[in-house]
C-alpha cells in the first residue's frame, strides 16, 4: 500500500480517536450548566479531570501529522478557515482554563463564571469542528495555487450548519453516557434519564443529514457505490444506535458508552471513505482538489513519519490504556481534585 494511503488512514485514525476521546470531554462540558449544584459540577469536571488533556493531544497530533504529511492541506485549511479557526482556538483556551481555574477561588460568582465558560467553549468547539466537517464533505472553493478561494460566509452554508447540529447532538449524547458511567446515585440517575431522548434527537438529525447528503450532494457517496462493501459501516451505526436504549434501561452504561464510541468512529470512517482520495475537495472546480497525492510531503518525509508513528503510537496506546485502567470506576472527590 502506498505511503500516501497509509497516511490517509493514520490521519483518519487520529481525527477519529480525537472525536471519540475529547468527544466525551466536550459532551460533559455541553451538559455542564444543566447540573445545578456545586458538588454535581465538581463531580462532572473531575470525571474528565485526569484524562481530558491527553485526549486533547490527539487533536494536536492530528494537526502536527497533517502538517508533516500533507503541508499544503494544513496551510490551505488553517489559513482558509482563519476566522472560525481563531474562534476555535479561543474556545480551546477557554475550556482548558475553565477546568483548571474553576475551583481555585471559593466564590460562587467565580465558579459560575467558569462554569459558563466551560459550557460555552465546549459548545463552540463542537460547533466549529462540526461545521468544518460539513465543508470537508461537500468541498470548498479552491484556487489553482491551492489557496482557499471563498469567504467566511461560504463556510456557514446550511449543509455545514446541519453537520454542526448533528455533531452537537451526537457529542452531547456521548458525554451524557460517559458521565452516567462515571457517576453514581442521584446524579447518575438524573443524567441517565435524559440519554434516550438525546439519542432520539441525534437520530432524527442524522437521518435528515444523511438524506440531505444523498439528495443534494450525490457525488459524495460515489465511493460507496463503487465498493458496496462499505455499506457495512452504516449498518454498524444503525446497530449501535439500536442497542443503546436497551443498555441504558438495563443500566449497562459501559456497553452503551462503547456503542456510542462506535457510532462516532463509524461516522468518521464514512466521511473518510466519502472524501478519499481527496483531503480538501474543491467545489466548484474539482480539478483543484487537494488530494493525498498532490498535497503530500516527499516520500522520504512520509516514510520517516511512518516509522515515527509505528514506534510512537503503540507506546502511547500502552500507557494511555494503562492510565485509563487506573482511573476506571466512579468519580471520587478528594483533597487533590479540581
Amino acid at each position, binding site marked *: 500500500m502506498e505511503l500516501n494511503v497509509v497516511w490517509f488512514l493514520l490521519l483518519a485514525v487520529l481525527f477519529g480517536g480525537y472525536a471519540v476521546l475529547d468527544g466525551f470531554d466536550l459532551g460533559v462540558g455541553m451538559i455542564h450548566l444543566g447540573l445545578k449544584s456545586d458538588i454535581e459540577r465538581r463531580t462532572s469536571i*473531575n470525571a474528565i*479531570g*485526569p484524562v481530558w*488533556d*491527553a485526549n*486533547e*493531544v490527539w*487533536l*494536536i*497530533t492530528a*494537526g*502536527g*501529522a*497533517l*502538517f*508533516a*504529511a500533507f*503541508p*499544503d492541506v*494544513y*496551510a*490551505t485549511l*488553517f*489559513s482558509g478557515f*482563519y*476566522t472560525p*479557526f*481563531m474562534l476555535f*482556538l*479561543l474556545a480551546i*483556551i477557554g475550556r*482548558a*482554563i475553565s*477546568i*483548571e*481555574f474553576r475551583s*481555585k*477561588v471559593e466564590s460562587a460568582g467565580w465558579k459560575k463564571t467558569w462554569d459558563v465558560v466551560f459550557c460555552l467553549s465546549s459548545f463552540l468547539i463542537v460547533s466549529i469542528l462540526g461545521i468544518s466537517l460539513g465543508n470537508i464533505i461537500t468541498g470548498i472553493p479552491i484556487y*489553482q*495555487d491551492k*489557496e482557499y478561494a471563498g469567504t467566511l460566509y461560504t463556510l456557514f452554508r446550511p449543509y455545514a450548519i446541519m453537520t454542526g447540529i448533528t455533531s452537537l447532538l451526537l457529542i452531547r449524547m456521548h458525554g451524557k453516557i460517559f458521565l452516567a458511567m462515571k457517576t453514581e446515585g442521584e446524579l447518575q440517575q438524573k443524567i441517565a434519564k435524559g440519554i434516550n431522548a438525546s439519542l432520539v434527537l441525534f437520530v432524527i438529525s442524522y437521518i435528515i443529514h444523511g438524506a440531505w447528503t444523498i439528495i443534494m450532494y450525490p457525488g459524495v457517496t460515489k465511493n460507496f457505490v463503487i465498493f458496496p462493501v462499505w455499506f457495512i459501516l452504516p449498518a454498524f451505526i444503525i446497530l449501535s444506535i439500536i442497542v443503546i436504549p436497551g443498555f441504558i434501561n438495563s443500566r449497562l452504561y459501559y456497553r452503551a458508552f462503547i456503542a456510542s464510541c462506535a457510532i462516532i468512529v463509524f461516522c468518521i470512517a464514512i466521511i473518510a471513505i466519502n472524501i478519499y482520495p481527496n483531503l480538501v475537495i474543491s467545489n466548484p472546480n474539482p*480539478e*483543484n482538489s487537494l488530494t493525498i497525492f*498532490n498535497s503530500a510531503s*516527499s516520500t*522520504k*518525509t512520509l516514510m*520517516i*513519519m511512518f516509522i*515515527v*508513528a509505528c514506534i*510512537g*503510537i503503540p507506546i*502511547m496506546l500502552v*500507557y*494511555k490504556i494503562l*492510565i485509563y485502567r487506573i*482511573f476506571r470506576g466512579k468519580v471520587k472527590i478528594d*483533597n*487533590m481534585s479540581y
Partner: protein
Amino acid sequence: MQDAVLLSRIQFGITAGFHFLYPPMSIGLSILLIYMEWKFLKTGEKIYEQITKYFVKVFALIFGVGVATGVVMEFEFGTNWATYSRYVGDIFGSPLAIEAIFAFFLESAFLGILLFGWNKVSPRFHFFSTIMVSLGAILSAFWIIVANSWMNTPTGYKLVYNVVNGVKIERAVITDFWTMVFNPSTMERFEHVISACFLTGAFLVLSISAYWLWKKIDVEHAKKTMKMALFLAVFSSLTQLFSGHHSGIGVYKHQPAKLAAYEGHFKTAPGNLYTFGWVDEKNQKVYGVDLPGFLSYLVFFDPKEPLIGINDIPPVERPGKPPVKENPPIQVAFQSYHLMVTLGLLMIAISIIGLFYLIIGKLFKTKWLLALFIPSFILPHTANMAGWIATEVARQPWAVQNILLTREAVSNQVWFSLIMFTSIYLMLGVLFIYLMFKKIKQGPASVS
C-alpha cells in the same frame, strides 16, 4: 501585504512570548518536584509530602496555562504563515508531529497520575509518573528547538521545483532526517533553553521560599525548598553561561550577521564586547562601555582576530531570485542580547551570594538577601524573553536563514486575531498572577 507581515510577526511574537512564560516554569519546577518527591519517598517525612503536594498544585496551574497557550502555536504556522508551511512543511512539520507523538502524549497522560493518582497507584508508580511528566516536557522542548534551530541553521534539505496546474512551485524537501534534527545549532540551543528552564523553575521556587521566610509562613518548609532551589539556581546559571558561550561561537560560524547585530559590529575588525551601549545605526557607531577585543577573544581566543562586520557580509544569492543584502534590526538585537547577558550574570551573582550565605548558616535570617530573592523570579523570565527576541530578531529578514524571507512566508487576515489574542492573554496573565499569589499566601503546611 506588508501590513499582514508586520501584524503576523507581532501576533507570533505575542503568542509565542506569552506561551514561553509557562513551559520554562513547568520544566524547571518538574525537576524540583522530582527531588521533592524523592526525598518524601526516601524519608517518609510529612514535611516533604506537604511540599511535594503543594508544588504539584502550583505545577498544575502553570501547566494548564502552558497547554492552553501552546495549542495556538501548533496551528499558527498554518493560519498565519501558510506560505511558510507549504514551502518548508516537508521538513518543519516532522519535528512538530514528533513532538506531539512522543512528548505531548507522554506528559499529558502521566499528568493525570501526577495530579490525581495519589490514592490510586503505589508511591513508586506515582514517582515514576512525575519523572515521565518531566521527561515529556523536556522532550517537547527538544523537538521544538530542533524545528526552530533548523530555521536558523538549515541542513539536511534540498530545494525542488514542481509544476502543478501550470503553476511553478518551489519548496524545500528533506534529504537526511538526522542531519536535519542535529543541525549545527540544535544541541547548543537545546542546552541553552533547558538551562534557562531550570533557572526559571529554580528562581520561581526561590522567590516563593523567600516570601515565606520573610512573612514567617511555614518556615521549616521554606528552608528546605529554598535550599534545593538555590542549588539548582547556582548549577543552571553556570551551565547557562557555558552553553551561552558555545552558542555564541556557533552563531559566529553559521549566522555571522546575527553576532554582528548583537554587538553592533559594523566593520570587519577585531570585535569589542560591549557591557552596555546604544547603537547609532545611521552613523554605524556604538556608544557605550566596551572591553576591546574581548568578543574576538571569546570566539577565537585571540583578541586581534578580526570578526566580519555586518557591512561586509556578502549578499545572499538564491537561484532565480534577486540577491538579498539586508540587515536585521540592530538596535533591538543589541539591546535584547545585552539585557539577556546582564541578567544572566546577575543571576549567577545572586545565586552564588545566596549559596555563600547558606554555607555560613545565615541565609534564612538575612533580611536584605530575602528581600532580593522575593522579586527575583522576574529575572529569568525577562532574560528568556530578551534572549528569544535577540535570536529571532537578529535572524531577520530571514524566516529560514538564506532560504525564505519572512515577508515571503505570510498568509492573510490578521487584525481580528491579533486583538483577540492580545486581550485574552492579558486577561489570562492577570488571572494567572492572581491565582499564583493567592496560592503562595498559604504555605505547604496547609496540605493535609
